[in-house]
């Protein structure tokens, strides 16, 4: 009976995937994608994750987890698996799976969708579950510590450098997304600004009025945030008030930089913690609503399955389908960042070892389905509209007429009237060149929400979606700056002891300023770049995120081999090999490609030649030296990242070779077994 049921799931899944892949009509219903995804996840979870848990990891429920052995009522607490699932999902789900697929939609809906499904089931979910398990067996040690303990100091240092670099790039690119969403949009800007005093108010409530009463405080906060969205609309109608919030990219970048610094040095309870509560509630609520709305509305996908931009001429970012679709989708398929969360807080809450399947593999499946929804929201727009929103003026032309002509000439008809009508419906002055993914996602979400829950509220839904994205992007920005600060303080402590004290104020200020300067630099350059910055920063982020995934998979592979399970090593070694191929290919392209839209060095040379010839307009000539320097720096950075990955791979091969020869390697850092029932 059960076999029959799973046979049916497999059959329906195969039918849906076939339908999605072979469909060549005008449009295709999103339900095909939803059904295909659900079947793939169900099969992956039921069979692959169960097999990995039983055979490769050999989870053992008679063995006491650290939550049981070290229960202290605080961080080590055995917790019900669905509650840990909720915490873990809330921790790994960020703006990445929403933005990545939106950008990757320039290749059509098919390539991104396939990679989201395959990458998650065979790569991302496996990585998350394995690292979660390894950390649970090691009392919740971090990825960096595990790399050092199991592979050696090289792996450890690589993990630390990788984490720091990814943090800087990630924050810069997310900051750029927020800046682009707020640029010349008084409604969005006012709403995002209002989230700061609201968070502080909630912080004061949670500390002074009713300490720790998270639910009621969040309810008050969410109500205020919704009022802020409506209030932003009222402000937008006001002649003078709206001009105060009608800001250019540069001042907004400075605002984000100043905000990041202040948030990093303030006590966490005042701004960071309450903002996180609000963003978590919003995030879970919105994802839930979006899933319901997609199923209720069953939208038609208007984007072709595959566009001509697979050749590398795409307007959103340059680069061909291989390897760039794999770099761009990032978090929805495999994200190294998850390995940091899976080796920190979560393992300390796990009550029985077999829970790692639901929590590690299952949470990543859910994250992947968020990416699928983002892909649906991006591709249900008219392709012409999608490209008009997401293409920067440097590519399609600075005026509305030029942009619609260019985009229509690609075979994606769009008109100025259509774009103006859409902008008006969304309560914006223009939607041309709103790059970064957030505005087009917000338009997609607003159209899903409004047709499912009330069409009159299109503008409100749009700004709700922008606020929703901004709130948790700013949370990532605060939290990332803080983590970066701790890591830097730790490193600086080796140079001069007092700098290593995390609570010594001068050290806090210096380390925070350095971290903020690091990402602030990339953010600022991204804002002044006439090609829109995303084109440069998102691939760098993708490469660094995959680098971290590569390190995590190296640790996992090394441990599996050290345990004498060489025959199962492919479970993590195969995704590792794929990660190594795509990051290396992407880095190669980004460094040596002669297409200035792809290669950093080619772009630097082209710009330098234009500058020397004096053909640049005055304002572009002024920033050209910075851009040239930045492109060269980016090339170096990409090479550094890929170099680190290969060093760690070589180290893993060295350890594996020694194991196969019976030579001594570092001993397993697993905590000794203790019986679960004895406690």
């Amino acid at each position, binding site marked *: 009976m059960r076999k029959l049921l799973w046979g049916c799931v497999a059959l329906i899944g195969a039918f849906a995937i076939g339908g999605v892949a072979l469909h060549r009509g005008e449009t295709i219903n999103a339900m095909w994608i939803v059904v295909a995804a659900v079947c793939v996840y169900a099969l992956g979870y039921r069979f692959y994750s169960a097999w990995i848990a039983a055979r490769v990891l050999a989870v053992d429920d008679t063995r006491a987890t650290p939550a049981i052995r070290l229960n202290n*009522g605080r961080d080590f607490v055995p917790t019900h698996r669905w509650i840990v699932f909720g915490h873990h999902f809330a921790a790994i789900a960020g703006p990445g799976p929403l933005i990545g697929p939106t950008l990757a939609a320039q290749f059509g809906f098919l390539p991104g969708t396939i990679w989201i499904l395959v990458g998650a089931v065979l790569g991302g979910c496996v990585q998350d579950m394995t690292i979660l398990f390894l950390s649970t067996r090691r009392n919740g040690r971090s990825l960096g510590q595990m790399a050092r303990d199991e592979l050696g100091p090289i792996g450890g240092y690589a993990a630390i450098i990788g984490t720091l670099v990814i943090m800087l790039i990630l924050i810069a690119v997310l900051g750029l997304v927020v800046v682009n969403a707020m640029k010349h949009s008084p409604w969005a800007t006012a709403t995002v600004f209002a989230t700061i005093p609201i968070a502080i108010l909630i912080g004061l409530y949670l500390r002074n009025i009713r*300490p720790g009463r998270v639910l009621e405080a969040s309810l008050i906060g969410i109500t205020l945030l919704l009022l802020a969205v409506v209030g932003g609309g009222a402000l937008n109608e006001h002649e003078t008030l709206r001009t105060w919030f009608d800001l250019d990219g540069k001042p907004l970048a400075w605002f984000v930089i100043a905000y990041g610094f202040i948030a990093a040095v303030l006590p966490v309870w005042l701004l960071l913690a309450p903002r996180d509560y609000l963003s978590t509630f919003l995030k879970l609520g919105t994802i839930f609503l979006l899933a319901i709305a997609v199923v209720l509305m069953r939208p038609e996908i208007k984007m072709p399955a595959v566009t001509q931009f697979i050749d590398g001429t795409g307007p959103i970012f340059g680069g061909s389908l291989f390897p760039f679709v794999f770099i761009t989708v990032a978090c929805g398929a495999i994200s190294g960042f998850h390995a940091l969360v899976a080796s920190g807080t979560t393992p300390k809450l796990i009550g029985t070892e077999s829970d790692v399947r639901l929590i590690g593999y299952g949470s990543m499946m859910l994250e992947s389905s968020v990416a699928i929804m983002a892909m649906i929201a991006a591709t249900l727009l008219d392709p012409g509209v999608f490209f008009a929103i997401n293409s920067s003026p440097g590519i399609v032309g600075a005026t509305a007429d030029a942009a619609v002509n260019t985009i229509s000439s690609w075979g994606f008809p769009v008109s100025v009237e259509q774009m103006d009508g859409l902008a008006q419906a969304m309560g914006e002055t223009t939607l041309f060149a709103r790059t970064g993914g957030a505005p087009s996602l917000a338009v997609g979400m607003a159209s899903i929400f409004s047709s499912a829950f009330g069409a009159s509220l299109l503008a409100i839904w749009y700004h709700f979606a922008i606020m929703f994205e901004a709130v948790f992007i700013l949370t990532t920005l605060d939290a990332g700056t803080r983590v970066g600060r701790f890591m830097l303080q730790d490193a600086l402590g080796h140079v001069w002891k007092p700098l290593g004290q995390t609570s010594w104020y001068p050290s806090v200020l210096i380390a925070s300023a350095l971290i903020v300067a690091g990402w602030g630099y990339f953010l600022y350059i991204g804002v002044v770049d006439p090609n829109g910055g995303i084109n440069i920063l998102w691939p760098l982020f993708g490469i660094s995120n995959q680098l971290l995934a590569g390190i995590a998979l190296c640790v996992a592979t090394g441990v599996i081999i050290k345990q004498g399970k060489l025959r199962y090593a492919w479970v993590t070694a195969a995704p590792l090999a794929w990660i190594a191929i795509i990051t290396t290919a992407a880095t190669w392209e980004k460094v040596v490609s002669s297409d200035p839209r792809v290669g950093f060095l080619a772009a630097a040379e082209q710009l330098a030649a234009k500058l020397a010839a004096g053909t640049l307009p005055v304002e572009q000539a002024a920033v050209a030296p910075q851009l040239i320097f930045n492109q060269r720096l980016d090339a170096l950075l990409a090479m550094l990242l890929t170099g680190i990955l290969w060093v760690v791979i070589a180290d893993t091969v060295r350890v594996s070779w020694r194991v196969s020869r019976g030579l001594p390697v570092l001993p397993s850092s697993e905590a000794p077994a203790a019986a679960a029932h004895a406690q």
Partner: protein
Amino acid sequence: MKLRALRDLPRALWRFVRALSRDDAYFEYLRHHAAAHAGTPPLSAREFYLREQERKWSGVSRCC
């Protein structure tokens, strides 16, 4: 028997939501403290909340 499960459902759901949001963190701490460290005074609600926030935000707890 079934009726009883149905009647208890809202309560179970509420407990789940509180645990998911960590609204019950202090309550759980007090329970643990009473069991493990009876005799020593527990932290106040505010002290506990502030210490928990410091701990939570000194590592990677949010992702991209």
